[in-house]
């Protein structure tokens, strides 16, 4: 894998736990690779729950994989850097990387149901993870695996089960327990509940919250279910077509969304209580990342992008908006907003 690192210019800012700078990831070779992630800046503080929301295919999983450095060809990091505790992990040796994975950052995969090796006992998969990082004998590792399972509400005797003997929700919880096994600073939850029933989903989220309180890890929570994030995350980043278009504290985002895309997303969730108003969703469909629209990537679907406003229209269609701080902790990449702020 070729790793192109564009050193960020300028002095080192004070960084949090994890910081992505100008991260770009491409899929495929040749003249027109798909830039699934394009110039993403994102920072995560210790103990924080950062939500990452966006439509399918906008690059959420790709970011997660990049953070753990488990991208496989044809994916490659085309630009940017990934700082973990101030250290760029892109330059790390294979061995250092191996140690960094799971010990510092662990991950619950998007389809955690399939994340367990079907031919290995659950306990052994815990043992594998532990023994890859520390000297611990099998018996003690198994004992600890049992404790971890109890933490997520599964009988410790289940260490000797095979994955297929567990239900989907249980498997999900096993993976979460496994993600905890080395007490990492950051856990990435990539749509941990998409395939599950609402009741099970609720159950798992409650458990994660409880665990977070006990262990104090930070969470990068990836989902396309914005309503879930609003409830669960401290801060939310909205992604569209490989770019971050808005970040804000959860409450603020719910009350005062700035980007038309965010607004559209919020309008896509009918409420469960209160008055019902006709919703519109967002017309159109996400762009092909091999050939993204010029200018603002959202402009073809944007209700505020009208040829009548010629000047704005020209900027929207040719000039890429950048993230601007419009208020403490609230950043938006939108020509409209920039216009309004000035």
């Amino acid at each position, binding site marked *: 894998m070729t790793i192109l690192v564009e050193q960020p210019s300028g002095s080192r800012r004070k960084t949090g736990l994890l910081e992505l700078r100008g991260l770009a990831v491409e899929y495929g*070779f*040749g003249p027109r690779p798909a830039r699934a992630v394009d110039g993403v800046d994102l920072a995560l503080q210790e103990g924080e729950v950062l939500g990452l929301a966006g439509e399918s295919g906008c690059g959420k999983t790709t970011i997660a994989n990049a953070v753990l450095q488990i991208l496989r060809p044809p994916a490659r990091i085309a630009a940017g850097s990934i700082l973990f505790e101030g250290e760029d992990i892109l330059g790390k040796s294979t061995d250092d990387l191996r140690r960094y994975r799971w010990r510092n950052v662990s991950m619950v995969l998007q389809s955690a149901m399939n994340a367990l090796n079907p031919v290995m006992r659950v306990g052994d998969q815990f043992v594998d993870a532990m023994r890859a990082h520390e000297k611990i004998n099998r018996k003690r590792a198994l004992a600890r695996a049992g404790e971890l399972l109890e933490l997520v509400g599964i009988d410790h005797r289940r260490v000797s089960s095979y994955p297929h003997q567990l239900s989907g929700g249980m498997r999900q919880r096993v993976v979460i327990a496994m993600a905890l096994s080395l007490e990492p600073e950051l856990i990435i939850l990539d749509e941990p509940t998409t395939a599950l029933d609402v009741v099970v989903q609720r159950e798992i989220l409650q458990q994660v919250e409880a665990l977070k309180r006990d262990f104090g890890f930070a969470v990068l929570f990836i989902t396309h279910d914005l309503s879930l994030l609003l409830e669960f995350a401290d801060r939310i980043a909205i992604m569209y077509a490989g770019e971050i278009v808005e970040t804000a504290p959860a409450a603020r985002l719910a009350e005062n969304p700035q980007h038309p895309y965010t607004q559209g997303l919020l309008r896509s969730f009918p409420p469960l209580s209160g008055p019902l108003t006709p919703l519109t969703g967002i017309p159109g469909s996400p762009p092909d990342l091999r050939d993204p629209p010029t200018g603002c990537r959202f402009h073809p679907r944007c209700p505020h992008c009208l040829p009548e406003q010629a000047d704005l229209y020209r900027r929207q269609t040719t000039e890429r908006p950048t993230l601007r701080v419009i208020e403490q902790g609230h950043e938006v990449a939108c020509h409209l907003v920039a216009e309004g702020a000035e």
Partner: protein
Amino acid sequence: MSQLDPTLDPALDLSLEAPRRIRRGFHVPGWLALLLSNTKSRLGLAMVGLVVVVAVIAPWISVADPNGFSLLAARQAPSWNHLFGTTDQGSDIFSQVVIGARRSLLLGFFAAALATSTAAVLGITAALLGGLVDDVVNVLINIFLVIPPIPLLVVMSGYVQDHGMTTMIVVLALVLWAFEARILRAQALSLKSRDFVDAARASGESTARIVFGELVPNMISRIAAAFVLVFYIALLVDAGLEFLGLADVSKTSWGVTLYWAQTNSTVLQGEWWPFFFPGAALAFTVLGLVLLLAGIDEFTNPRLRSEHKPHRSRLRMLFGGRLATREEGVS
């Protein structure tokens, strides 16, 4: 003798069977365009094509009678007069090889066609109907897989007096259909669970139409793969039987030339050409088919595709710029 029994994993993604387009409105079946866009299958296609061409023009490039004998010309090493040398009897091996290509190709083709159609009808219908029909077909398939085909053929050819082409085709198809049926049934089973089959049923399509109108078009590449598979297995097995002397050894075919080479102990006499050329021709054809199959496999399973950028310019030269590409298709 299927030495190569490629994994035709039924769970593979089939959505890629969708047709590509050439220019506006002109549709090329997706598989053909893909076949030409894959390096392996292109090479395979070229190799098989070469053999086909040779077989077609065989009468014009060979001597009148490939089995004609001549005292003067016996046991000659390859030379300009006899490209592939001559046999113990002075027959021209080149002629035997090019004429032999006809029989091999025809036999392989028809055996494969017969086996494939049997397998497709049985396998797909069984999968679709399920229940008892499926159980019976499935057990039948598995039983055929348990009886070793070559010994079965060897014993059968001991009984069959007539080793004519038709008989051989039928016999080969009878023994080999299960290979394909297994693949196609598994494939159809996985397709059957797709909603579009139920959707077609819900909109009132008949079973026959679902099989031939909805399922089969989706399985073209699988069926093609199965066809190619049986094609070369049939080639190999037939040549093998001839080589063992279990066929009509007065015909002209690769296996028969090999048989005579073996019978005349040419190997032990240090004459390599009587067995090398027909053997190489057989291996060449089979390799071409294997490559074709590998190509089909690759485009059926996108994960197998190697991630090289396509050599489009060279392709253009080869195919006169009429090659369909994905970009042109999507409007």
